[in-house]
């Protein structure tokens, strides 16, 4: 069996000190298998974003460790973490995913060009085709709709064939149709190209695109669900909140 794409072991994150101390993550251990689409759900303030940031080499833990494949992130310097993000991780944020002065195409190849690499032309074309943004490549972000912008962001995340893609509510700012399209593409990337994706979401319908759902509450993993559907998720949330 291959190792999981990403793994947290006893991950604890504490913000502040004394009276203002907040434990955002409390001894979280979780694996994310390769080729799987995982959704992280939970109430506001439950630590979803924190967990994702720590997994994605954007933030460090107070205690515990995080692995990307075989590589342990804990204790790495800024430079190594930066290169890791550049070479092994893709991101789709809720908004402001694109550099406004660059065209869609320039944005998509940005991680590669920052690393001084060229993008695999065939794969690039394939990604563009999957996401249906071929006619937008020379446009700047301000000339595109929110849904198009998020698709370009997804294309950027896919283009460098990262080991894992993290999304923090990637469809959170989109209407249901654009959101559904985006999630459909992400699903397709997982099914057809074996991409690993971890996505934070509030929305049960969005989460239903995933293979597996991890529920967080108060900085702990409170539940898990495989092969979710929207109804199952809503039911589970109700019980969890009760």
């Amino acid at each position: 069996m291959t190792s999981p794409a990403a793994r947290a072991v006893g991950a604890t994150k504490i913000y502040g000190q004394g009276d203002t101390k907040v434990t955002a993550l409390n001894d979280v251990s979780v694996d994310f298998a390769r080729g799987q689409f995982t959704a992280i759900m939970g109430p506001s303030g439950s630590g979803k974003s924190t967990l994702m940031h720590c997994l994605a080499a954007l933030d460090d833990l107070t205690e515990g460790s995080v692995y990307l494949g075989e590589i342990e992130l804990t204790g790495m310097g800024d430079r190594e973490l930066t290169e890791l993000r550049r070479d092994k991780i893709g991101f789709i944020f809720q908004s402001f995913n694109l550099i406004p002065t660059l065209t869609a195409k320039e944005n998509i190849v940005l991680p590669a060009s920052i690393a001084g690499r060229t993008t695999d032309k065939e794969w690039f074309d394939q990604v563009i085709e999957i996401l249906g943004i071929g006619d937008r490549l020379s446009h700047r972000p301000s000339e595109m709709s929110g849904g198009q912008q998020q698709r370009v962001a997804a294309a950027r995340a896919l283009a460098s064939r990262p080991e894992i893609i993290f999304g923090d509510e990637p469809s959170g700012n989109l209407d249901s149709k654009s959101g559904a399209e985006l999630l459909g593409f992400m699903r397709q990337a997982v099914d057809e190209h074996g991409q690993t994706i971890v996505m934070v979401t509030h929305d049960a319908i969005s989460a239903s695109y995933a293979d597996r759902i991890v529920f967080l509450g108060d900085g702990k993993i409170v539940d898990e669900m495989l092969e979710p559907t929207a109804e199952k998720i809503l039911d589970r949330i109700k019980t969890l909140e009760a």
Partner: protein
Amino acid sequence: MIRAAIRGIWEHKLRTLLLVLSIVAGVSFVAGSLIFTDTIGGSFEAIFDGAFEGIDIQVTPDVDQGFSSVQPAFDASVLDLVEETPGVKETWPVVAGLINLTIDGEPVSVQGPPNIGISWEEDPTFQVLEGRAAAGPTEVAIDTVARDRFELGIGDQVGLAATGALVEYTVVGIVDGLGAGPGFFTFDLATATTVLNLEGLFTGINVSVADPAETESVLNAISNRLPDGVVALDAQAAAEEQAAVLKEALGFFQTVLLVFAGISVVVGVFVVYNAFRTVLGQRTRELALFRVLGSTKRQVTTSVLVEATVIGLLSGLVGLAGGVALASAAKFGFSLFGGSGLAEGGLVLQPSTFVTALSVGLIVTLVSAILPAIRASRVSPMAALVTIDKPPRKLTKQIVVGALFGLPGVVLLVLTGLDRIPLWAGAAGALGLLLSAYVFGAVVGRPFIRVIARVLGNAPVRKIATDNAARSPRRTGATAGALMFGVALVVAVSVIVVVTQDTATAVLEDAIASELIIQSSGPDPTAGFSAEIVPIVRGLDTVEAVQTTRFAQGSLNGENEFFGSFEPETVEQTFKFAEVDGSWSDLVGQTVAVQKAQAEELGLSIGDEVTIDLGSGPEPWKVAVVWDYAAAVDDTQGFYLPTSTLAERFPQANVVAAYIKLVDGVDPNAAKASIEELISADYPFAQVTTQDELLADLQTQLLGLLSVVFVLLAMSIFIALLGIVLILLLSVFERTRELGLLRAIGATRKQIRAMIRWEAVFVAILGALMGAAVGTFAGWSLAGSIFGEGFNFVVPWLWIGTGLLSAIVAGVLAAILPARRAANLNILDAIAYE
């Protein structure tokens, strides 16, 4: 809202600090110039209050030219005429003239005001402070300026000479001179007459009257008796005139400070304007929110102006402190320059200076803030609710405004360059062109930066830097514009310097055939040296020919004119001519040789008559030669008389220059050494120089001029640098999320720093190149006006390069702080959602 404005100042300490700093330089120069003038000006008044006490009337030659080599004098018989005038109580004849000195046998080179040898026989001009008045052929009494400047005391030996051979004198007394300006060396009348070679002549007569109330009528009575070329003046008026001469030296310092002030104020205004514009642009949403909450447009404007006021007052106060520092520096400089007596006592800080400093600070900031404030008040309340994606604004306004300033500017500069209109019109044109370039920066900035970027290649971060620099063209243009000023200034001045150098080199190489030149080593090269040297040099067998030039002042056809002189016998051996009409051998007696340009101007040709007055009344002189040098010599002296005639008329006058043509094959340096050996003991102030040395001297002088320019460059670049820092900090702040995103997807800190640095360098190169272009053009125009049409234009590549390089360095330096900020952004904060 006002409270919000004040809090804004406090919360953005770094921004406030940078804004204050960019205005401080201007305020400092203004305040410094005022403090300096008040301090020194006060002492001037004190000096001249009692300068001529006891003297009511002065009789002097009618040519007002201060102390120069051709010290005008009148016949001693005038004394009798004055003495016999009714109402005259006492008279004291005076001889005075420039004097050179040696201490311990070494010639003392003097920078600044000259040294004057003067007769003094205990008339009221001076007062003995220590020791006694000089008496006899080896004694001298010196004034306090000379004492302090040369560190001389009673009993010291000093070698002095005007036109004759050097004589050692003993200092026997210290007298009170003016306390500033020239240094005085006083002798008894007989000694002074010998030293200055003014036998039978006086340069002035001091007169006291029996009844001071009658001064005016006595003055008139004397005037009526005086021959042509001699006048009587009220002593008070004479004192004021001398004060004016000294104040000119002060005026120079003040002018320099005010020029610095002007430049720093202008650059400061641009920096602050740009910063306010950018800050308010970024605060659009906040301002709109205030409008939603019911603030009126006026309240928005007021809040911006309150912020400007606070910053202006702060700058005024800091600038005042800077002004005090500058004034003490200037005072020190002035004391070195010969004003030792003036540099005593503390600085004078008048309330008006205080008010002016604060006002300059205030006005600069308010002027800079007013347009951005008005624009801010126009922010629609809607802007708070929706993010209005501003389409890139058309730059039509920039093009129109730029053309409005630029076209007349170009026309004025071209006309000035062709020497059709006066220099000040060209200066106005230069200012117009600078303003136009400043506005145009926005238009040319974007394509220009794209081009540079293409030249450098589109590495990924550089590409983003390029886009950022091109993103808000007006901001970039304005930032670059501030830098442009300094560079333009330096390039323009360096054009003048380079052209001067080039012209002078051409003169030396193409117009002068002699290998050696003898001139005065004193501060004024036209002071010349004793004619006694000439026969000594002529006697050497390495010397083929000697050509001596003397100067005389007078009038030609009623216009004041400065005359040179030629010796017809050797002129063709020592100079190179392109064209000679008439024959040099005809240049004898009352004849004149006219340079071609001047001859054409006056329509003169061989045989014509002109009226020349050399102080003894108008006389007819005949044009004997019209000539043109082999080089494009800018010689304002177009009229040359026979040296022999001048020597006859002004036996006391020095030879100004001797051109020595050596026998073929003689080494100039060896010849120089042998001449020096013969003359240096007796005539230490006659300096023998080779052509190479003259060139080197010239270069040294020009470097002196350039050092002032360097200060200007450094100063304006510094302010512009603050501008770049400010704008970069603001845009780093503005682009926080973008930077966070770049870091999140894998840009290293180093790459982020490089990106900001490139952005700064792009702006700097833009500013420097605009400056170089405007500066070269303005310099050409200036040079055209100074050197006349057809001068040899030289592009000062070296200085353009220097300007460009310093701009790039400034850009890199300016980027340090903003780049560090950008690189150290917390990624999570940066990408945190609103």
